[in-house]
């Protein structure tokens, strides 16, 4: 990532994803609390939540934002622990790949559940 972008740009994304994600996490938690914690976990209720398009968009946005923020955070920690060109590139591209895989995996759940493919 660093070879593609300046570190300050990556950090701006890091801060921004954090701030926006906090807003979405609050919405996510509020929805669950308002439904009642136990009821919100019932299969039919969960599916109904996913079928609500605005809520599915919130979930998808949260998935992307937290993945970007989380894996960049992990990259920062791992780059500090050890140095070296090969290691640093492995960490950077490894985190990028893990982020993409997690987003793809989570999106699959959101898209399929919201389209009723369960």
């Amino acid at each position: 990532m660093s070879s593609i972008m300046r570190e300050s740009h990556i950090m701006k994304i890091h801060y921004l994803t954090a701030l926006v994600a906090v807003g979405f996490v609050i919405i996510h938690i509020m929805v669950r609390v308002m439904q009642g914690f136990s009821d919100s976990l019932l299969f039919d209720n969960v599916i109904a939540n996913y079928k609500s398009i605005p809520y599915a968009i919130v979930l998808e946005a949260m998935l992307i934002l937290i993945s970007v923020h989380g894996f960049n955070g992990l990259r920062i920690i791992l780059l500090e622990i050890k140095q070296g060109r090969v290691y640093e590139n492995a960490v950077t591209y490894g985190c990028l790949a893990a982020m993409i895989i997690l987003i793809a995996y989570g999106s699959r759940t959101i898209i399929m559940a919201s389209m009723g493919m369960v």
Partner: protein
Amino acid sequence: MEKDRKEGIKGMANPGRYGIERVAYWLMRITGLGLLVYFIGHIYETSSLLDGKAAWNSMLELTQTTEGHIFLALVIGMCVFHTGNGIRLMIAEAGFGFGKARRPDYPYTPSSLNMKNKLCIYVSIGLAALAMMYGLGVMYDV
């Protein structure tokens, strides 16, 4: 011949010796890593929806236990601390909240370690504790 005196991960992770700011640094790392682990687990957990009601219910049986609730309460605490302290860091890292640079006078109290910053750290820890208690209350329908 020289030998590197790098403290290593032990030195980086040691929260003691340098006051609450260093503890906050350590907590920020631990909570960040903890939340990432939870997030990956949560994505995996919710993917069981696609395998139908039985799979979802068996996943719930695994997570909706006392240990699961304690873990979730910890996640709530980690999330609140990480958010509170993260906002403090964002403000500080933008260069706000220190006042102006000035000629230092003995005994050199650093303005970057001012009370406002310390207070924000304590408030973040306090809010995390409250949120954990509230979360446990919600989970156990108290």
